[in-house]
C-alpha cells in the first residue's frame, strides 16, 4: 500500500514536474508572506519585513532542488539536466567536440565497414535451408574433381553425401530474347542442383534431375530473380517463353527466389541452365575425363552423423579408386572439403579480412588513445571550473556524472556518425562492380548486428577513455586550484597522456608504413615484367559458339577475323590465344608433361606442370613477348603437321638444361603425343602476379581448335590512332564478317584488372587505413601541442617579456610534443616494417626494405607533425605578454 502510494507520488512527480515546480514556488512564497505578516505585526515596515522573511528562509533554489530530490523526481530530472548541460558545455568548445566525435566516427566507421564485410562474406552462411552441413570440393586445389565424368563417379560412389550436385560457370553466353543479342553470365548446373540445395521456385519450376537425358537434352533455363526483375521487368508471363542461348532455343521454366544468388557468395549469375547442355553453353565436352574445365565445384549435404573427417576420407577413397581405374586422366590429390560459398577463396578472404579487422582494431586503439588525451587535456583545462563547482557545494558524484554524460554523448554522436558513414559505404560496396562485365558483387547488407556492434564499440571506447580525467577530478583540491590558478609546472615526468600519445602515434606510423609499402608494391607490380606488353594492345573476346560455329568452321572463321584485323590502319600485329590470355580472370590451365624417355604417363608422374596456351602465329609479336631462340609458330603448323611448341625459358631450362639446348628436342603430353620444341620465349607471369616463376608452353591453335578465344591486336603507338578509333574499326570489321556475333573489346590493361584486383583492394583498404591513421595522428599531436601551449601561455608570456627569443619559446612550447612524435614514429616504423612481411602474401613485391618507403614514412610523419603543430606554434608566437599578464 505504502509502496503504491510512493510510486504514484513519484510518477505524478515525474509527469507534473512543471506543476510541482509552480506549486513549490507558491508554497515558499506563501511561507514568506506568513513570516512577513508576523514580522509586520511586531512593528516592522512591510517591505523590510518581506526582505527579512526572504533572508530567514535561506537559499530558495537549493531547497527547491532538495524538495525535488525528496519527492523522488530528481533522478530523471537531473539526468535530463545533465544532458542539457553537457550539450551546452560541448557546444561551447566546438573544437574539442568536433575532434572527439570525428575521431570516434572514423574509428567506428572503419570497424563497422570491416565488420560488415566480414559478416557478409565469412560469418553469414549461404542463404539456403540448412547451410551448416553443406560442403563442397574446394575448387582450386587441383584435386582433379573438375571433370564431369569424375563428378558423376564421385556422386554415385561416395557414401557421405545425401546427394551431390555440381555447377560451373557459363560466362558470356549470348542471350537473344527476340531482337537484341546480349552477353549474359549464368551457372551451368547439375539437374539435382536446386533439389540438393532445397530451394523452392519463386515462379514456375526449377530444374530437376529428371530433365537430364544425355548431352544437350535439357533446353531449360531458370532466371535469377534480379535478372528477371531487370531484364524482364517482373513479367510473370515470361515462364514458358522460348529464348535463344548461343543461338540454341531454351524454354524459361521458372524464376529462382529473390534471395538465392547461386552457390558462390561473390558471384551473382543471371540464369541457371542444365550442365548436360555444356556443349551449347560453354563449348566443352562432358565425356572427357581429363577436361578439368567442366565442373567448378561439386557439393552436397553431409548425411546425418557423418563427420567432416569421415567425408574427406570417403571422397579420397573414391579418388584412389578412380586413379587406379583411369591412371592417365586422374591424379589423386588429397581433397579438402569446405563450407559452400567461397570455396578455396575462403582461406584467403578470411585471412585478408582478419588482417583488415586487426588494422581497424589498431585504428580504434589509436582513436581511443586520442580520445583519452583529448579528455585528459580538457579536464586539466577545466580543473578551475570543477574546483569552483566543488567549492560552491556540488558533490564529486555529481561532477563525475556530468563528465560521464559528456562522454556518453560524444560516444553516441561518434557512433551514430560512424554507423551512418559505414552504412552508406557498404550500400555502395553492395552495388559495386569491381570488374567491368564480370558478375562479381560483394554480398554486404548492413543489418541490426552491425548497428549493435558499432554502438557497443562506440560506448565502450567512449566511456573507457572519457573517464580518463576521473582521477584528476577525484584528487582535485578546490582550495589549491582556485588559489593557484590552472597553471602547472612543466613537469619532466612522463604522464599517462604522454604514453597515450606515443602509443597512438606509433599505431598511426604502422598504418602509414603499411599503406606506403602496399602502394609501392602495387606500383612495382604494375611496372614489372609480365612477359608481354599490356600497353597499346586491344583484346577482342569472341566466342564462336555463341554464333553457332562448330568443327572446322571455327579455325577458318578465326583466321578470317585475324586477317580482317590486320587490314585496320595503325594495327601492327594480330594474334590469337584460345580461352583466356595470361593474367586474365586468374584463369590458367596447367597440364602434365613428360620427358621423352619417361614412359610412365600418369599425371602423378609428370616431370613438370607448365601452363598450356594455344596461340596463333604472330601471337608473340602481337603480345610483345620476346622470342629468345628458334622460330615462331606458323600457319603451316596445322592439324596434320607434326606437333610443335614454343616454350618459355623456364620450361626449356627445366626440361632440357638451356634455352638453345631445347631447340629441336621433344617431350610428351599426357595423351602420349610427342611435341617438338621449335622456339623459346621469355618468361612471364601467367595466373597471378605473386606466383613464383612458372613453366609455360604455347601450342599451335590450329592443332587444338577452340571456339572461345581472345584476339590480341597490337597498335603501333607511332601511327597516331588511339585505342577508341581502332576498337571502333575492329567492331565494324567483325560486324561485316558476322552480324549476330557478340564481341567484347577492351584494352589489355583493363583485362589485367582481375589479377590486380586483390592487390588493388589491399592497397585501397590499406590506403584508407593509412589516411585514417594519419588523420588521427594529426588530431592527436594537434591536441597535445595546443594544450601544451595553452597551459603554458602565461609562462611563455613571461619568458617573452623577459626577452626570450621566439625560437626558444617555440622550443619550450612544442619541444615535448615533437619529441613524443619522434619516439612514436620510430616505434611505429619498426613495427610497421615487421608487419609488412605479412603484406607480402597479398601485395606483389611488398617489401619494407625500400629506401623510398622508409623516407616516405619519415617525411609523412614529419609533415603530419608540421601540420599538426602549425596552429599551436602560431599561437605561441603571437603571444603578447602585456595582454596576457593583464588578463591573468
Amino acid at each position, binding site marked *: *500500500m*505504502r509502496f503504491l*502510494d*510512493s510510486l504514484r*507520488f*513519484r510518477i505524478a*512527480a515525474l509527469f507534473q514536474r512543471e506543476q510541482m515546480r509552480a*506549486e*513549490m514556488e*507558491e*508554497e*515558499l512564497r*506563501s*511561507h514568506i*508572506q*506568513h*513570516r512577513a*505578516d508576523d514580522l509586520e505585526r511586531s512593528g516592522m515596515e512591510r517591505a523590510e519585513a518581506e526582505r527579512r522573511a526572504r533572508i*530567514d*528562509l*535561506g*537559499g*530558495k533554489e*537549493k*531547497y527547491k532542488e*532538495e*524538495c525535488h*530530490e*525528496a*519527492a*523522488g523526481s530528481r533522478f530523471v530530472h537531473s539526468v535530463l539536466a545533465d544532458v542539457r548541460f553537457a550539450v551546452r558545455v560541448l557546444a561551447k568548445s566546438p573544437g574539442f567536440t568536433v575532434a572527439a566525435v570525428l575521431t570516434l566516427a572514423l574509428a567506428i566507421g572503419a570497424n563497422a565497414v570491416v565488420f560488415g564485410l566480414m559478416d557478409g562474406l565469412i560469418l553469414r552462411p549461404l542463404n539456403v535451408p540448412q547451410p551448416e552441413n553443406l560442403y563442397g570440393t574446394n575448387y582450386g586445389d587441383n584435386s582433379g574433381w573438375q571433370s564431369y565424368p569424375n563428378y558423376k563417379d564421385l556422386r554415385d560412389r561416395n557414401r557421405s553425401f545425401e546427394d551431390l550436385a555440381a555447377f560451373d560457370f557459363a560466362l558470356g553466353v549470348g542471350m537473344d530474347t527476340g531482337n537484341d543479342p546480349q552477353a549474359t553470365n549464368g551457372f551451368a548446373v547439375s539437374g539435382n542442383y536446386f533439389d540438393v540445395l532445397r530451394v523452392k521456385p519463386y515462379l514456375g519450376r526449377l530444374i530437376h534431375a529428371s530433365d537430364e537425358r544425355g548431352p544437350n537434352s535439357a533446353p531449360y533455363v531458370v532466371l535469377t530473380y534480379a535478372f528477371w526483375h531487370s531484364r524482364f521487368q517482373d513479367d510473370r508471363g515470361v515462364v514458358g517463353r522460348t529464348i535463344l542461348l548461343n543461338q540454341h532455343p531454351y524454354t524459361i521454366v521458372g524464376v529462382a527466389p529473390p534471395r538465392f544468388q547461386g552457390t558462390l557468395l561473390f558471384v551473382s549469375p543471371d540464369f541457371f541452365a542444365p550442365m548436360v547442355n555444356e556443349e551449347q553453353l560453354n563449348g566443352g565436352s562432358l565425356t572427357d575425363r581429363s577436361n578439368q574445365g567442366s565442373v567448378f565445384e561439386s557439393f552436397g549435404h553431409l548425411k546425418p552423423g557423418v563427420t567432416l573427417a569421415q567425408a574427406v576420407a570417403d571422397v579420397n577413397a573414391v579418388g584412389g579408386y578412380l586413379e587406379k581405374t583411369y591412371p592417365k586422366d586422374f591424379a589423386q590429390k588429397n581433397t579438402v572439403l569446405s563450407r559452400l560459398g567461397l570455396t578455396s577463396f575462403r582461406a584467403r578472404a578470411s585471412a585478408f579480412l582478419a588482417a583488415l579487422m586487426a588494422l581497424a582494431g589498431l585504428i580504434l586503439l589509436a582513436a581511443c588513445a586520442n580520445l583519452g588525451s583529448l579528455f585528459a587535456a580538457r579536464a586539466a583545462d577545466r580543473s578551475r571550473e570543477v574546483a569552483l563547482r566543488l567549492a560552491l557545494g556540488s558533490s564529486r558524484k555529481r561532477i563525475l556524472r556530468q563528465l560521464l554524460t559528456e562522454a556518453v554523448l560524444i560516444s553516441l554522436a561518434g557512433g551514430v556518425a560512424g554507423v551512418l558513414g559505414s552504412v552508406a559505404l557498404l550500400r555502395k560496396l553492395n552495388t559495386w562492380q569491381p570488374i567491368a562485365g564480370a558478375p562479381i558483387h560483394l554480398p554486404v547488407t548492413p543489418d541490426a548486428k552491425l548497428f549493435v556492434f558499432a554502438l557497443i564499440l562506440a560506448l565502450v571506447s567512449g566511456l573507457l577513455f572519457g573517464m580518463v580525467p576521473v582521477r584528476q577530478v577525484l584528487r582535485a583540491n578546490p582550495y589549491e586550484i582556485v588559489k593557484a590558478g590552472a597553471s602547472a609546472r612543466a613537469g619532466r615526468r612522463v604522464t599517462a597522456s604522454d604514453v597515450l600519445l606515443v602509443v597512438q602515434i606509433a599505431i598511426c606510423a604502422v598504418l602509414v608504413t603499411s599503406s606506403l609499402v602496399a602502394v609501392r608494391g602495387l606500383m612495382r607490380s604494375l611496372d614489372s615484367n609480365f612477359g608481354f606488353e599490356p600497353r597499346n594492345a586491344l583484346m577482342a573476346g569472341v566466342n564462336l559458339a555463341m554464333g553457332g560455329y562448330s568443327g572446322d568452321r571455327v579455325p577458318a572463321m578465326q583466321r578470317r577475323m585475324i586477317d580482317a584485323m590486320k587490314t585496320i590502319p595503325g594495327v601492327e600485329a594480330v594474334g590469337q590465344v584460345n580461352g583466356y590470355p595470361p593474367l586474365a580472370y586468374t584463369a590458367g590451365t596447367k597440364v602434365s608433361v613428360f620427358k621423352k624417355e619417361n614412359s610412365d604417363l600418369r599425371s602423378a608422374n609428370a616431370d613438370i606442370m607448365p601452363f598450356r596456351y594455344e596461340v596463333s602465329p604472330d601471337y608473340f609479336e602481337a603480345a610483345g613477348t620476346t622470342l629468345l631462340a628458334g622460330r615462331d609458330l606458323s600457319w603451316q603448323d596445322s592439324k596434320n603437321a607434326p606437333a610443335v611448341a614454343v616454350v618459355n625459358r623456364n620450361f626449356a631450362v627445366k626440361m632440357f638444361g638451356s634455352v638453345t639446348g631445347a631447340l629441336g628436342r621433344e617431350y610428351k603430353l599426357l595423351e602420349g603425343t610427342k611435341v617438338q620444341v621449335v622456339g623459346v620465349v621469355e618468361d612471364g607471369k601467367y595466373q597471378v602476379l605473386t606466383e613464383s616463376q612458372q613453366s609455360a608452353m604455347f601450342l599451335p591453335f590450329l592443332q587444338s581448335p577452340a571456339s572461345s578465344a581472345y584476339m590480341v591486336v597490337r597498335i603501333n603507338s607511332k601511327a597516331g590512332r588511339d585505342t577508341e578509333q581502332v576498337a571502333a574499326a575492329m567492331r565494324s570489321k567483325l560486324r561485316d564478317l558476322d552480324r549476330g556475333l557478340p564481341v567484347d573489346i577492351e584494352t589489355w590493361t583493363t583485362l589485367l584488372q582481375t589479377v590486380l584486383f586483390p592487390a588493388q583492394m589491399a592497397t585501397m583498404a590499406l590506403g584508407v587505413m593509412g589516411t585514417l591513421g594519419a588523420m588521427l595522428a594529426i588530431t592527436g599531436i594537434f591536441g597535445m601541442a595546443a594544450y601544451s601551449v595553452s597551459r603554458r601561455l602565461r609562462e611563455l608570456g613571461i619568458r617573452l617579456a623577459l626577452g626570450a627569443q621566439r625560437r626558444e619559446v617555440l622550443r619550450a612550447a612544442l619541444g615535448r610534443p615533437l619529441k613524443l612524435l619522434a619516439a612514436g614514429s620510430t616505434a611505429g616504423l619498426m613495427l610497421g616494417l615487421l608487419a609488412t612481411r605479412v603484406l607480402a602474401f597479398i601485395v606483389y613485391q611488398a617489401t619494407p626494405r625500400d629506401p623510398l618507403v622508409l623516407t616516405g614514412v619519415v617525411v609523412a610523419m614529419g609533415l603530419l607533425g608540421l601540420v599538426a603543430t602549425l596552429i599551436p606554434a602560431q599561437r605561441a608566437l603571437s603571444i603578447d605578454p602585456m595582454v596576457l599578464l593583464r588578463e591573468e
Partner: protein
Amino acid sequence: MNDQAQLLPGTLDLLILRAVSLGPLHGYGVLLRIEQISGKALLVEQGALYPGLFRLLRQGLLKASWGTSENNRRAKFYELTATGRRRLKEETDSWNRLATAIASALSPQPEEA
C-alpha cells in the same frame, strides 16, 4: 551555551509528524508549532523544513491540500495519513525508549556521587 539545541539528524521528520498530528497545518504553521511545542528550544532552519515535508509526502505519511490560512492567504495544508499516525506512534515509542536509555546511562550513578 546556546539555549536553542540543534536538531539531531532524523528528528526533523518526527517533529513534523508530531506537529501535524494536532491538526492540519501549512508549512509556516508547522515551523511555529514546532517552536511552540518545544518551548522555543529547538531550532529548525526555515527552508530545510520543505524537503522534509516532501519526503514525508512521498512516503505517504502526510497528505496535502491547498486552502486558506488564518491570515486569509492561500497556503498548502498538511495532515497525517493513517500510516503517518501509526508511524508517529512507533517513532515516539522508540524515541522514548532511546531517550530513557540515554538518560539513565548519563544520570549520575551511585558510585560516582
